[in-house]
């Protein structure tokens, strides 16, 4: 949860890198411009969330899903983002399917600094249920929230 106002800021270093990548080489970005873009990005997130939430509510769903976000982009007149976002979504789904093992491993390493082989096996079994995973995730997400 956001406890301090700065929790609603995005990391400046990452924002700056994204700006630099988008602009031609050697363009100077003033400090003021950086922080303005960073603020704009936070507002964008809120605006997108609010729009997406409207679509979820229309669909009588409690949980925001990918299609809500895509609809929100259209509503916000950011149609130009839809194709790259769909590509990103596909890439994400592929990644979840293919690299689940690796990412789970990473996550686990972080969660608890132990990595016994037994746990690996249980994770592997989980992978068989990949297809059901996306729906499951939605539920998990809700559970996380309730807690």
């Amino acid at each position, binding site marked *: 949860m956001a406890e301090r106002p700065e929790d609603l800021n995005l990391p400046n270093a990452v924002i700056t890198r*994204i700006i630099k990548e988008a602009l031609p080489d050697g*363009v100077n970005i003033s400090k003021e411009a950086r922080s*303005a873009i960073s603020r704009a990005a936070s507002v964008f997130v809120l605006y997108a969330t609010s729009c997406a*939430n409207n679509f979820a509510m229309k669909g009588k769903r409690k949980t925001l899903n990918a299609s809500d976000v895509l609809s929100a982009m259209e509503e916000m007149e950011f149609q130009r983002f839809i194709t790259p976002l769909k590509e990103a979504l596909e890439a994400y789904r592929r990644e979840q399917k293919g690299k689940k093992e690796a990412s789970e491993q990473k996550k686990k390493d972080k969660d608890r600094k132990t990595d016994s082989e037994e746990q690996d096996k249980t994770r592997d079994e989980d992978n068989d249920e990949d297809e059901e995973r996306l729906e499951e995730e939605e539920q998990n997400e809700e559970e996380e929230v309730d807690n």
Partner: protein
Amino acid sequence: MAEVVVGRDKCGEQRLVSLPLSRIRVIMKSSPEVSSINQEALVLTAKATELFVQHLATYSYRHGRGKEAKALTYNDLSSAAEESETFQFLADILPKKILASKYLKMLKEKDEEDEEKDDDGESDDDEAES
């Protein structure tokens, strides 16, 4: 959720999103009406935010005045918010900078306008009273 710290993805593979998902989630959750967000929606919002940052930066730079100086300034951004319809929602947080003297002049002009209106109103009242 523990996110991989950005910049640690040096192991060749390009990460899908470079903004920290945990932070994006906190911002999304700060909206009171939102109850829960699934992972795909979170990833898409993060990605959309990246695209947005790129778009805002390139649009402001291309339409801005700093192009000759090879610089992106605050004014370029606030002009974008003012001129472009898609960036309109940013107008409040990217107000145009103006000189204090100009602002005072604007205030004065506005006061005068208001006074004129008030005068009209008063004269109406006067008429009604008499």
